[in-house]
């Protein structure tokens, strides 16, 4: 059961935040409102009238619009065409011609009325993510909705784009529209919401006002006290472990995505790479791990070149790797927890050799690590797909951290992970650092990078724009993430 007798009321002109961990049932609830799922029990009242939504068409007709976390746009269509999709204006009967001009005008009017600048003739694929999101919002508004549901809208935005979006939401609310804002980010909730409903395990656990402190909200969300700060002592950097210089990498389409990156990570320190998703971080890490070819430049671990070393050899030379896409690269979902815990060590003693596995050693070690890393499963023999996202990630963390490491690379280590597990994983990363491992953390969550890192490298369009201290004001790091270098901490940027 994803939702268990939830009551929620949204007033006109209100921004209502729906706060909950991943898997708490927020999206399930909203999918029912939008007609994508049908409730087993209970009813939906719109302006006091009970409604049954069999499909999103019914929901839109009742004045409910939704902007999904993953945009529902056709990349090769223009903005106006995307907005027309599903509500085409046709001249001359059902087989007539599309009235493009009228739609274009409508888009322009809507975007001006609500202060949402979009170019109706631009191709969607050429627009930055923030603009694509505005297109989605305009699309909903042209359908005359009174209630707009935004599902995790800030996950893909830079801090500046987030601020712009919050302003737009405020503006919409002032024109009398109601907004449901689904999120798990406390900072944003406090900045914008009029009322907050917290959901945990499919139940409403409380309604809060924006004055509630972040700690209280987190406690409501998780059900116990959590510490939001990563507690750590100052780093004691040692020798240079990873040294990357002049690295150039192309992506699958041959587009240059890493364009001359230099960085060093020392033993006993965490280097954080901040940046909006898609600025070359993924390819940088894949190149270091031997998963992607390199155009130019060099990479060394303890002065030993990584060029031509396969992924297997890099891993066995003392590198731990948490890939950013857990379900694609991190685990084999059909495999048991025990098998996933040796996914990159199955042919090394004591788990096996080049020919055969040692099931006893694999299972014994799995039981130990399930205990040690607090992986919530009733048996290590269960398929990993039966675990929650946070516990799946703990399997990856347990696997990579239960061997002696020289370098640890963690890409988006807490994406899609519940608050309770985030705390645990962060502590494990700091623990690894304190053991003298060089740690490279890549994250598009600025909070995470600031919390973990001893130094922060900001990556933008394939380059490291600057390496800064985590004490630098968030706004300035945010500007760097958006590619603005002028006037910011010149001395540090010049480093």
């Amino acid at each position, binding site marked *: 059961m994803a939702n268990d007798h939830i009551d929620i009321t949204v007033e006109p002109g209100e921004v209502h935040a729906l706060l909950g961990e991943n898997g708490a049932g927020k999206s399930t609830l909203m999918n029912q409102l939008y007609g994508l799922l049908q409730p087993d029990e209970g009813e939906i009242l719109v302006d006091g009238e009970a409604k049954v939504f069999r499909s999103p068409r019914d929901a839109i007709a009742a004045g409910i619009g939704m902007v999904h976390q993953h945009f529902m746009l056709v990349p090769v269509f223009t903005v106006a065409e995307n907005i027309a999709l599903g509500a085409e204006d046709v001249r001359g009967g059902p087989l007539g011609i599309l009235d493009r001009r009228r739609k274009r005008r409508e888009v322009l009017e809507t975007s001006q009325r609500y202060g949402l600048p979009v170019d109706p003739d631009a191709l969607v694929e050429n627009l930055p993510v923030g603009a694509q999101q505005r297109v989605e919002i305009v699309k909903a508004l042209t359908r005359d909705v009174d209630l707009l549901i935004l599902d995790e809208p800030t996950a893909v935005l830079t801090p500046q784009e987030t601020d712009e979006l919050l302003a737009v939401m405020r503006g919409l609310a002032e024109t009398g529209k109601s907004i449901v804002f689904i999120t798990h980010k406390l900072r944003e909730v406090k900045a914008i919401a009029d009322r907050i409903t917290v959901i945990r395990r499919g139940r409403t656990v409380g309604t809060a006002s924006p004055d509630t402190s972040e700690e209280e909200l987190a406690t409501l969300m998780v059900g116990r006290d959590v510490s939001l700060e990563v507690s750590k002592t100052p780093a004691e950097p040692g020798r240079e472990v990873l040294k990357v210089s002049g690295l150039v990498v192309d992506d699958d389409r041959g587009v240059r995505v890493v364009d001359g990156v230099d960085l060093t990570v020392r033993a006993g320190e965490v280097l954080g790479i901040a940046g909006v998703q898609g600025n070359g971080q993924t390819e940088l890490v894949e190149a270091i*791990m031997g998963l992607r070819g390199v155009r130019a430049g060099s990479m060394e671990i303890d002065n030993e070149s990584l060029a031509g070393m396969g992924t297997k050899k890099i*891993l066995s030379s003392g590198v731990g790797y948490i890939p950013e896409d857990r379900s694609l*690269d991190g685990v084999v979902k059909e495999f048991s927890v025990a098998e996933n815990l040796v996914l990159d060590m199955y*042919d090394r003693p004591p788990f096996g050799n080049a020919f055969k596995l040692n099931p006893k050693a694999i299972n014994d070690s799995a039981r130990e690590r399930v205990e040690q890393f607090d992986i919530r499963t009733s048996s290590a023999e269960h398929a990993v797909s039966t675990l929650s996202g946070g516990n799946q990630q703990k399997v990856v963390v347990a696997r990579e951290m239960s061997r002696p490491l020289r370098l640890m690379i963690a890409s988006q280590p807490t994406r899609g992970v519940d608050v309770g597990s985030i705390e645990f994983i962060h502590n494990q990363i700091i623990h690894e650092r304190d053991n003298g491992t060089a740690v490279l953390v890549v994250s598009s969550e600025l909070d995470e990078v600031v919390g973990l890192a001893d130094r922060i490298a900001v990556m933008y369009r394939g380059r490291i724009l600057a390496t800064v201290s985590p004490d630098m004001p968030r706004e300035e790091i945010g500007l760097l993430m958006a590619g603005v270098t002028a006037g910011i901490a010149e001395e540090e940027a010049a480093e």
Partner: protein
Amino acid sequence: MSTEVAETPAKPAPPEKKDSFLGLFLKNLWSANTFTVTFLSIFLALVIGAVLIVISDSEVLSKFSYFTARPGDALTASWDLISAAYADLFKGAIFDPASFQAWFDGTGTWQAAFGPISETLTYATPLVFTGLSVAIAFRGGLFNIGGQGQAVIGCLLGGVAGFAFSLPPGIHLIVALLFGAIGGGLWGFLPGLLKARTGAHEVITTIMLNYTAALLLSWLIEQKGVHDPKRSDAISKAIHSSAELPALPSPLRVHLGIVLAVLVTAGVAWLINRSSFGFELRAVGVNPPAAKTAGMSVAKTYTLLMVVAGGLAGLGGAVQVLGTADKLTDQVAGTIGFDGLLVALLGRNKPWGTLLAAILYGALRAGGNLMQVDIGISLELVTVLQALIVIFIAAPALVKAIFQLRAARSARLGTSLAKGW
């Protein structure tokens, strides 16, 4: 949430009593697990087969024209025909009580009594190898449609080694079997390498190599040194007795190949579940990006896997020549490679399941022979039965809906590998 769950009555659950062992057993049996679905698929196929038997018999069908007047006639005639047909299927495949009776009376021989089982196992033997070939490839995420071509090459090399060399018994057999396996392995290596290096889809390349192998065999049989000079038709020299798989005394045809098949099944089961290569191929089979990230070489796994799969099919071809056929002809491999696809599907791509499925296929074939000889029902009906079984297995939702099965209790049993086909 599936529709089946929704269909169960919504009345409050009665207080759960502690299930007895038998109760729990029956409950699990009636849930939609692999075993139940397979069994019910066979049952459904037999029911539809019965209808087809009646429809295809004009004499019985004519009795249905006055069904409303005397329904007894039509029903009795149908029942007699169906029961005779399925009784023959059983007698031809497993055992005939009459011949056992004759053996005990001294009027018959023990060979006649064990004839049906012998036939079943004879037909099943090559299918075990080709079925395992498809199954292991599928576990590694590859569709080996080339079992036929690999088996043909196995026949070819195994057969040639069988009559071209003069070696002591035993050693000659082993050499001939190895030749077959190596030939099939090479025929699998090509598509494997192409897949790994260029991404060429193995379905296309293996199908093409099936034709190549069949034509190569036709050509080779006509060549000097291979063709039997005493014959005018396309047939090769007979393999030497030193290379033959030892068989039971004639007319029983079952040979040592079935023992080899069981040993190879055990070997494949070990390879998949307990070896490092098996771990790699299973990981590559379900999630290649994760396998690559964990440092495995996807390309190397694909290539090696196709060599192993081809080797198994090639061994099946060699066993067919050295155990049953003893000469090369155009049709020596029959359709063992293609049947291997269905056997693997029926066996859910598990080694022991594949062995059982091959025996079922062999039994249907052996029983079908008797059915045709005894009451004139076409052997094609058996093909229809085999096809129906496969259709029901491939669409487990259909079987579950027909029998209103409960969703399987354990998720580990339920997920059907057939989905990928």
